[in-house]
């Protein structure tokens, strides 16, 4: 068993990167991810890792340098948040389209304007369609564990696709929690040696990256990219099984909590799931059959598996820590997509919560569960989408 420590989410992720020892990291500081790379820079300058650290002048260049480094043929990581991810947007597609397994902790934060440095999922949701694998973490332990697993998933020879590992800004990145570290040797062994595919540094077999491909084949390239994504869940589960053998900690495509016989359910990602579980326990004590589903793998999204897990539920509330203005919340749209395959469809409501770091409090979960109880009884939804925790 590894060492038990009290650390922040950022500290745990920096530790994971130290144990993985990437060949190149290129990064640019941004709150709340700054602290992660800052700590890692310390490991570089103290000679604890072999990493070549490229301290670029913007996030756009950070991702560009990561792309160059990954194409050169080695293990590459960076980290960012919010505006930084937004500035990378163009390059996110290029990293994925070029099939470069770059790993990026994303410390989720609100997007400007107005300027706000606190946690919500707007940044990650904006990168939904970039072709990156997205894994969301509830707490520091999950962020650490997911980050280690993400290298195996992204670098798998059937996948070779970049991955972002998300945790809530400040709520997880800056809160000290109990985390169980894995021994260095075990992490090294688990992640394994990097296998370069078509590296630029293979001088004897020169490769051209980034061709122009127009109407005759672009469509086929994109379908191929989609097909690769469909293979991710299987690989993620295999990696999770190996991880469980090593640590005893179990991971799936999503987590369910008291969902097996639930009549009402909340679907929510990341740190808010912890608070929700407590309230579900309270409602269970009152004899109300409430449960929770917490997506872990958001891209690719396991529609059928989630539909199966929710098929017996009468009423579902999807809690989104991001909004698609003029539309439903992004997670709600995914769950709606999953529900589509069900024979008997549950009633569904969408709550937008916690934007810009607004606290998600137990009474908000209670309010949502009370509404679900009513809906389950009457089958009537009055208001599909609503903001909760708003100051009136």
């Amino acid at each position: 068993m590894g060492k038990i420590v009290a650390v922040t989410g950022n500290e745990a992720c920096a530790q994971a990167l130290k144990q993985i020892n990437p060949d190149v990291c290129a990064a640019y500081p941004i709150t709340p991810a700054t602290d992660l790379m800052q700590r890692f820079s310390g490991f570089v300058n103290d000679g604890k890792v072999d990493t070549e650290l490229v301290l670029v002048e913007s996030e756009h260049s950070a991702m560009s340098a990561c792309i160059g480094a990954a194409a050169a043929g080695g293990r590459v990581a960076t980290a960012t948040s919010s505006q930084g991810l937004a500035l990378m947007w163009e390059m996110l597609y290029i990293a994925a389209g070029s099939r470069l397994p770059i790993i990026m902790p994303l410390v989720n934060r609100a997007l400007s304007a107005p300027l706000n440095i606190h946690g919500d999922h707007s940044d990650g949701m904006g990168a939904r369609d970039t072709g990156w694998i997205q894994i969301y973490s509830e707490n520091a332990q999950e962020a650490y564990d997911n980050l280690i697993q993400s290298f195996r998933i992204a670098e798998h020879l059937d996948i070779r696709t970049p991955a972002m590992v998300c945790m809530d800004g400040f709520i997880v990145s800056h809160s000290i929690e109990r985390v169980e570290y894995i021994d260095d040797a075990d992490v090294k062994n688990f992640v394994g040696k990097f296998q370069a595919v078509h590296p630029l540094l293979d001088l004897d077999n020169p490769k051209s990256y980034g061709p122009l491909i127009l109407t005759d084949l672009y469509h086929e390239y994109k379908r191929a990219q989609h097909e690769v994504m469909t293979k991710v869940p299987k690989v993620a589960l295999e990696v999770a099984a190996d991880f469980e053998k090593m640590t005893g900690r179990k991971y799936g495509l999503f987590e369910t909590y008291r969902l097996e016989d639930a009549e009402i359910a909340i679907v929510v990602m990341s740190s808010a799931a912890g608070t929700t579980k407590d309230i579900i326990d309270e409602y269970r004590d009152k004899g109300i059959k409430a449960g929770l589903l917490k997506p872990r793998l958001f891209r690719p999204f396991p529609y059928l598996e989630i539909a199966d897990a929710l098929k017996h539920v009468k009423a579902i509330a999807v809690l989104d820590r991001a909004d698609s203005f003029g539309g439903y919340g992004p997670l709600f749209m995914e769950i709606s997509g999953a529900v589509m395959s069900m024979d008997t469809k549950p009633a569904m409501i969408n709550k937008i919560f916690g934007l810009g770091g607004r606290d998600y409090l137990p009474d908000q979960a209670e309010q949502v569960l009370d509404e679900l109880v009513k809906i389950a009884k009457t089958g009537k939804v009055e208001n599909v989408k609503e903001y909760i925790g708003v100051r009136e």
Partner: protein
Amino acid sequence: MTTKPLKLKELAKGEERFMHGHRMCAGCGAPIIVKQVLMATDYPIIASNATGCLEVSTCIQQYTAWKIPWIHSAFENAAATISGVEAMYKSLVKQGKIEDKQVKFIAFGGDGGTYDIGFQSLSGAMERGHDMMYICYDNGAYMNTGIQRSSATPFGANTTTCPAGDVIPGKPQQRKDLSRIMAAHGIPYVAQASPAHWMDLMKKVQKAFEIKGPKFMNIISPCNRGWRTRTDDAIMLSKLAVDTCYWPLYEIENGVTKITVKPKEKKPLADFLKPQGRFKHMFAPGNEWMLKQAQEYVDAQWERLLREDASGKDEAGEKV
């Protein structure tokens, strides 16, 4: 590695690393420049390429003209991209994972990808001190998207976004002096070159590759589509650019400026402008002021360069 002799007969026997069959326009300056750069050296080279004419025309679908490892990622980031490649090379060599084969790293970009949208990424990579060379092929406009003005477009030029109109006759501003800005980064080597002076160009490439750290070369690249000239004028125009001192050939090595080719007789700027349709309106009656203003700018720049060239020499004219 010994620097190879620049004899045409020998160079012609060398292995071509930038192949025929690409789809650059006939008479374009850029592929001539790329050939000269790659021909100058036997070092292994890995190149990045900013989005632009050179990039879209040399790697289409399953075809590539590049016999060296080559990467294009986007428009504004050729410098950042190659800096990542260089960092990986350095890391793997340092860790003993690969052998040091004295690989040289080049980023190619047009003036749009270099002076403008890629300026930040270029500046950052130069400041970080990567062992790389950035080569700008400067054709003075966004030619790939259809001849829009860039900050490298010369004063008065007619482009599709600064057309020679009834009220505004072409580009109102002088061009950005990027070579000087790059020198201000304090990098060990900056040079301007022209494909007409191939020996000078290749010597500069050779010299640059013997210097560790970031290098920048700005090379004039005639574009017959954008300059509105005959197809086979590229070499003639890149020579006239030097002879009129519009495009002086010089290098700044560790802060010391040296003019490498001084025209025997400085020709009037009009000799360079006249064959180009993009300057046609400047020769129309009433626009004499434009020619005058363009000439004055070139003269002032040249005078300054002469002073800088002289400042690094002793009384006998030797470099100190």
